Every structure is written in structure tokens, then in C-alpha cells.
């Protein structure tokens, strides 16, 4: 889909519950990571994981909601466009009136590959790892992410996956995809 076509289809995005509506019950806490990391502090400029707290980012609610097991993003309160990644201002109408909405937790793999060599600092021990672009079910968003739960040699296009939150081992959280059958 061209960028333009994608933009058009976003306008008709499925309506999602706005942030101030009652939150769905918090999901079960994220499962412990299969390979717990050390709490060794990396230099900031060699650490891809972002700083997540309110004193560091205006998007801290993304991480707070992720900690509850909810993948979320922002939607423009004026023109209704759904953003990824979450934003503080709408790229179309430039308003800063945006609201948090939950995203579907399931999707299907659009494309995938794997990193077999040349991983960034701190990820060398995770090689080989699979990554992919995942079409989330019911919304016009295609998210990039790690795909866990199956070796890359056994993945296929169209593979159903779900989003999961995980603890990166130093108090921060991030998300990834896991294969479901």
C-alpha cells in the first residue's frame, strides 16, 4: 500500500475506546522474560531502550499502560487519525490535542527476517533473533518488532502473533510479538 493509500485508510480507522473511558481490566502481569538480563547499566548512547518516566518523556503513559499489558498509541482528537508511533502532536492537523487508545493485541505477519550477524551492542547474545512487520487486526497499523516463540526458519508470512509486554530487567518495559497457533 502506498503511503498515501495508507493515510487514506487510516481516516476510516476503527473507532477505539478513548483513554478516559473506563479502562479494561488490567491483563495478567507480563510473563517473566525467558532470558533475564542483568541490571548492568549501559551508557545511554549505547542503549536502544528509551527512558520511560514522566521526567524524561511526554509519552510516559505508553509505558505505564504497557506495564498493565496494554499496547496503546495516540489518536488525534480533532481529525481522528491514528498514529504510530505515539505522538504529542498530530502530523496531519498539527493539534496537540491527542488521546490515548488501546490497540488490538493480535495481528498477522506481513514480512519477516532475522538478524544472524551484526547485532547492536547488548543484543549480541540474542542472535539469531527474528523481526517482522505485523498488521494489527482491525486497525490500519503495521508495527515492526521482535517475533519470539519460534525460530525464524519456521515463521511464515500470515503467521498469527500476539503482542506481549516484557520487563527488560532494569525497571523498564517494552513490547514484542509472540507466535500463536
Amino acid at each position: 500500500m502506498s503511503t498515501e493509500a495508507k493515510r487514506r485508510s487510516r481516516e476510516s480507522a476503527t473507532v477505539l475506546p478513548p483513554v478516559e473511558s473506563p479502562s479494561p481490566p488490567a491483563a495478567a502481569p507480563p510473563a517473566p522474560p525467558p532470558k533475564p538480563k542483568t541490571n548492568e547499566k549501559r551508557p545511554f548512547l549505547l542503549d536502544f531502550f528509551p527512558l520511560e518516566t514522566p521526567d524524561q518523556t511526554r509519552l510516559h503513559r505508553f509505558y505505564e499502560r504497557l506495564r498493565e499489558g496494554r499496547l496503546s498509541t495516540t489518536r488525534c482528537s480533532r481529525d481522528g487519525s491514528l498514529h504510530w508511533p505515539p505522538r504529542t502532536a498530530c502530523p496531519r492537523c498539527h493539534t496537540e490535542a491527542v488521546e490515548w487508545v488501546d490497540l488490538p493485541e493480535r495481528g498477522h505477519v506481513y514480512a519477516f527476517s532475522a538478524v544472524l550477524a551484526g547485532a547492536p551492542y547488548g543484543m549480541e547474545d540474542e542472535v539469531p533473533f527474528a523481526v517482522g512487520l505485523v498488521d494489527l487486526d482491525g486497525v490500519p497499523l503495521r508495527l515492526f518488532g521482535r517475533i519470539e516463540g519460534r525460530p525464524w526458519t519456521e515463521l511464515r508470512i500470515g503467521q498469527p502473533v500476539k503482542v506481549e509486554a516484557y520487563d527488560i530487567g532494569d525497571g523498564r518495559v517494552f513490547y514484542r510479538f509472540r507466535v500463536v497457533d
Partner: protein
Amino acid sequence: MSGRAVAIVGGVTTPFGVRPTTWPELAQEVGAALFRAVPELRSEDVDSLFVGAAEPERFAFQSHVAPLAAEQMGLQPYRILQRTELACASGQSAIRSAYAAIASGLSDVAVAVGVEKMNLPSMSEASSAMGCVMDRPWDGPHGATAPPFFAMVAQRHMLEFGTTEEQLAAVSEKNHRFANSNPTAQFHAKTFARDKLLRLPIVSPPLRLGDCSSMTDGAAAVVLTSEERVREYTDTPAWIRGTAQYSDFHNLANAGSLTEWPGLARAAREALGGAGIGVHDLDLAELHDCFTISEIIEYESLGLCARGEGGRFASDGRGDLGGDLVVNPRGGLLGCGHPLGATGIAQAVEVFDQFSHSVAAARQVPDPEWALVHNLSGSANVHSVMVYQRGGAA
């Protein structure tokens, strides 16, 4: 194209490769080589310097590289001194900035130089530098770098159009063969037969080592001036007849289909239109083959063949000597290596050298008049295009 006519009047490329030398030493080396290559050039002529450098902070722990490069090269610019950064297209950005400055009258004689030192003692630190070209807080934590992204592009192209690994290898074989006649290429004097390419280790499936350009140290520089002063330096100027750029996205979520690069189609159409020619008038093209699949999609986006037919265009040799036009006679990023800031400038040096018939016979395009240079940056986020015409009157 408005303003004064602008041409490249000389240029030079250092050897590319894993070089036992530092960032400042590369700048010094390319400066000395430039004054040898353009003997009429005097330091005091150069009023402006544009320095293409993608990530000196990450690769060389060095910021403020424009005055550093000027000092290393023995230049004291007095109109415009600045760095241009657009990841893999940083070099072409330096040329486009110099072009704009000269066309507008702000500069009369400018040098565009590209320098990149990418080989570090730690491969994982170098990979981190490549990773932060992506959207760092969102794509970075997943381990996004260029190879897995372009691997997904290749996977989709294979799925949608039946493109094969053999067709990818055809691109790599051609560009490595041209690199064999380019003594500055990283893979000069190395043979890559198609069957050998298909046995190399996989980096990111389906891409193998031979499908990927490398981490490279190197520098390149060109001199640009206006129609008023071109003849002081050369009888074979490479005139800039068109240039355009288009930005599609940054975060990988906004990459669209992956197999369609509308930004390139649009930038090429505009640059060729500015030159008053069509794609079939081109004699050669330096295309951004950071990966084999990139060159295949570039054939399609430029309109050299229909969408989906880029693989066949490659395996039929239509981008080779004797084909429709010659693509990447320099050896491409695959054969020459890809020192990010230097690549776009080395491509322009190739165009200048092709126009003046000063390259090895094995890669000389017969009597070329029109050339196109393309750089993409990041995950094909931005496409930058220039169109050059050989010699003649302004």
C-alpha cells in the same frame, strides 16, 4: 533549473576499505588527492566547503567536523562552511547544497567532500551506530538495522513477483565485476561468481553476505563552480541539469508495501524533467545498491522496467555494458563498499571520470552524455536524485 548553471569540474576518491587510518587522516588524504587531481585549484579559490558525514559522533567520537575537515584539507572557507547529514545520502546532500549555493550566487567555487570511518574495534558498537539511523526509541529496541529491513523488502518482492536469489546474485556479480576494474573499490581484485555468491553465509534471510554492502572507511571530494569559471578548471565539466528529493517516511510502520518506492519515482521524474530528458536518454546510472534488492526496485521505480520486472531486468543484463544503460559501472556500493558520507560523492566522481573517458576500459561506458545518480537513506526513507550532462556549453 533556475539560477546560474553549475558543474562538477574535478574530483577524487581515496581507496575504500578497512583502512588503517582515522577520520581526520582520511580528510587530509582526500584533500591532498584533490589538489593533485585538479591542479588548477588553489586553496584561496574555495569559498565554501560542504562536508558530508553521516555519523562521525558514533564512529569517530567527533562533532563539529566541518572546520575539522577544512583544517585537514588545508582550506579556509569564507562564505559557507557546514556539514550535511542525511545518513547514507550525506554525500549527495553536500553536492546538492554546494549546487544551490553556487546557482544562487552565494558561492563561486565550492568543494563537497564526504568522509566516513566506519570500522571500529567493536562490531557491535558499529552496528549500534547503524541502528540509530532507524527510529531509535521505537524500532531500535527490536534490533532494527538495515539488513533485516531490506531483507523484508526482498522477501516481499520474491513473494509478490517471483524474484529469485539468482536474480539478486546477478546484481551482485555485475557490480563486483565492475569493482574489479576500479582500484579504489573495497572489493577490487576479488571475484564473485554467481554460484559462489549463492553459497555465502546468510546475514538476514533471504539476503546473503554478497547481497549487502559493507562497513567501509573512505573519502571522496569534488569541486563545483558556475558557468562563469568552469573553463578555469576543465574542458570536460559534468553539468548539473536536474536534482530532486522526496521523503516518504521514517518509522518502519510507515514503510507502505516495502516493494514500491514512490518517493524515488517522484524524485526521478522531477530531476529528469528538470533536465528535459526521459529515463531512456540515460547512458549510465549510479544507483544506491546498498543491497541487491535495492537496485532491482530502483530499476522499477525509475521506469526502466515495469513494477515486478526488476529481477528479470538484472538477470537479462539490461543494466550491464551492452544493455539498456550501464548501472553502477563504478562497482556500486556492493563492490566499492559504502562509507556513508563519501558514497554520493564517489558516485559523482565516477560520472565526471566517465564523461572524461578516464576510467578503465572494462567499465568505460561508450561515449556517455547523460548520467543519473541516486541515493536512498536509512530504510529507503528519502530518495535523492541528480542528473548530469557531459561537457559542451553551459
